[in-house]
């Protein structure tokens, strides 16, 4: 979707003040983002004498961030193509967790299952979860977004919120209103290898092992395949795309499908990582993932991944602060604060280019 952007006439060169402002906001944002790790890195050096705590936070942050990256990709794909924030995407992710858990407990996977059985079972669960969420996302598009495509932006936003509530209720009916602990299938916290004093656990490996191939497949698909080209064209200018013979409706559905697939995968990883599922997890996850998408640059795939990883790291560092007053409860507030700052001062994000209507 990198080309999903600029319609300014190529000839006009931005003025120096505009360029200066752009650079200032970009580096200002980077500085703000780096402030947290740097500050805590320094305090770690002072307190512990080494950076291992920071290193562990970064590792855990990367794996958490991989989950956010998958969900953020869903947001960014949809926004790039129809300029709509899919409010229900967080709940699709939640449903992915629920479906994943239900399936693997139905399959009878437990801690006692051997590694081969576990891998095969989880792979199957992954595929089912992805397909379910993809289908769910497509269905939401047909029912909530397509009839309202020409309505003012408020209408599909509200419908999406309505869907998000419906899905949350499905979660409540399915597993109840309180958090549901689930068995720790992969022994998530077991340390696999310790590198330079920083331990990498099984959960970290799982997150990266699932995310990296999926992201690679997605970016290849979008940039190389015909359908991917159709997606980019539709994102750039839907009417022109239509005139060129692209079936815009199908392309949009395809985009939602891809987003849903990724959310389903993210849901399963999250369930295995946290060993806990909750009907409300999608709401917070959705906001965090959206922050990640915006941070990287909405409409920009690489940006979404980058944003996800950065947000994951910031979250981990914030969670592991020594609380002199407020502890981890402050973390979502910090993430949302970053969201506000980005949207006000640099709505195009770190590396993203502007989408159709400049913000």
């Amino acid at each position, binding site marked *: 979707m990198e080309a999903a952007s600029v319609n300014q006439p190529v000839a006009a060169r931005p003025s120096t003040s505009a360029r200066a402002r752009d650079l200032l906001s970009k580096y200002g944002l980077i500085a703000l983002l780096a402030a947290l790790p740097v500050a805590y890195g320094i305090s770690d050096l002072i307190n512990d004498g080494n950076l291992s705590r920071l290193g562990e936070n970064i590792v855990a942050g990367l794996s958490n961030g991989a989950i956010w990256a998958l969900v953020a990709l869903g947001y960014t794909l949809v926004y790039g193509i129809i*300029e*709509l*924030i899919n409010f229900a995407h967080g709940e699709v992710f939640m449903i992915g967790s629920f479906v994943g858990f239900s399936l693997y407990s139905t399959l009878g996977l437990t801690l006692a299952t051997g590694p081969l059985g576990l891998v095969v079972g989880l792979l199957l669960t992954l595929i089912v979860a992805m397909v379910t969420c993809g289908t769910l996302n497509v269905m939401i598009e047909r*029912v*909530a*977004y*397509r*009839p*309202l*495509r*020409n*309505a*003012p*932006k*408020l*209408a*599909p*936003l*509200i*419908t999406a*919120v*309505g*869907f*998000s*509530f*419906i*899905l*949350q*209720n*499905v979660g*409540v*009916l399915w597993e109840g209103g309180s958090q549901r602990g689930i068995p720790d299938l992969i022994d998530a916290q077991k340390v696999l290898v310790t590198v330079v004093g920083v331990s990498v656990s099984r959960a970290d490996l799982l997150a990266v092992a699932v995310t990296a191939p999926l992201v690679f497949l997605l970016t290849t698909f979008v940039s190389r395949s015909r359908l991917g080209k159709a997606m980019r064209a539709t994102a750039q200018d839907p*009417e022109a795309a*239509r005139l060129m013979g692209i*079936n*815009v*409706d199908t392309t949009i559905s395809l985009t939602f499908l891809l987003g849903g697939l990724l959310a389903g995968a993210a849901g399963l990883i999250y369930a295995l990582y946290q060993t806990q599922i909750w009907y409300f997890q999608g*709401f917070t996850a959705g*906001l965090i993932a*959206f922050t990640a998408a*915006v941070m990287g640059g909405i409409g920009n795939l690489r940006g979404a991944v980058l944003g996800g990883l950065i947000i994951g790291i910031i979250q981990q560092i914030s969670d592991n602060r020594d609380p002199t*007053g*407020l502890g981890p*409860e*402050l973390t*979502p*507030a910090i993430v*949302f*604060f970053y*969201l*506000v700052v980005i*949207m*006000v001062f640099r*709505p195009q994000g770190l590396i993203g280019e502007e989408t159709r*209507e400049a*913000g």
Partner: protein
Amino acid sequence: MSRLPDFRESRWGKVLPAVVVVVAVALFPLFRPPLDGFMDDSILALAYVVMALGLNLVVGFAGLLDLGYVAFYAFGALATGWFASDLWSKIGSEKGVHVGVSEFAGSLPGVHLNFLLIVIGAVILTAIAGAIIGLPTLRLRGDYIAIVTLAFGEIIGRLAQSGDQISPGGYKFSNGRQSISPIDQIEIPFFNQFDSATDLRPYYWTVLAMVLVVLFVNIRLRDSRLGRAWIALREDEVAAASMGVPLVRTKLMAYAVGAAFGGISGAFLGAYLNSVNANQFQFGFSIFILAMVILGGLGSIWGTVIGAVLLAFVNNRLIPDVLNDVPSKVGLDFNVTELSFGIFGFVLVLMMVLRPEGILPERRRKLELTEGIGTGGDDTVIEARA
């Protein structure tokens, strides 16, 4: 026969139905027992009407999609929590600060101000908060405003939930996960002190009076220069700016006034519910109020009133009391309350797909919405643009 249309068009014809309704609504508590559950729901419904009118101003009149309205409710309720309870018991060397309260409250530690003073304080506090929340959104468009306001709503909610640890100078921001309680009962000069454990009627009439005042303000604003500026802003920002509408000031005024209504209602609810609990300050509440505005008709004052009353009763009465046992009677093993937010979401989806202009739409909005809907897809290109 020919006189009827004249009557309906005449001044009296427009006013009389409203007058009858208001009188009926004002008098109905006299026919109910003083602690009636139905009156309890009505009081809540009227408090939500005030809030919905505030949100209607921001979203309906000015077209600024605010998804964080709960922040204003929070500030209003917290104002009551700070100034009508023993939360700040350190103040005045444990003796407390008392202004205009009865002797019972006058003997308790903490800050205790008269309810009217608290309302004024809540208005000022929320108006400032509204302006501050509105500032970052000035340059943003539609859905981005939604996200930023949502983020603010979440930030305030979470700060309130951890509020017992935020205590500059020993004065806590809130009581954290536990509630600030008990809150002083409302006292209005020249009336006896209210007592919600024995008689709900004074609360009812107070909130009804608030609704009437807020309605009055709303109607006057809508027909004023500022109101027309808001509508111009909503319809086309660029055109409005070129016609001389001061964008920044107009937008900030919308946020501030809308927020003030939320603050008034929040302050009242804090006192009525006798406790201020940070757990209520969640996104779901913002959507609840937004749904009322949408159900009634964005930008339509009377529609909003109807939408608010309807949804409040559906949420507090229809679902828990009336429908709750229906599934078990039919043999199914769940309660309808477990479906409450699903039903809610479903109503939202249904409204937007079938009748996005709401029950009692404002005329302009109806035209705008019905023109663009239902034909999404490839065939629109072929239609001639009107």
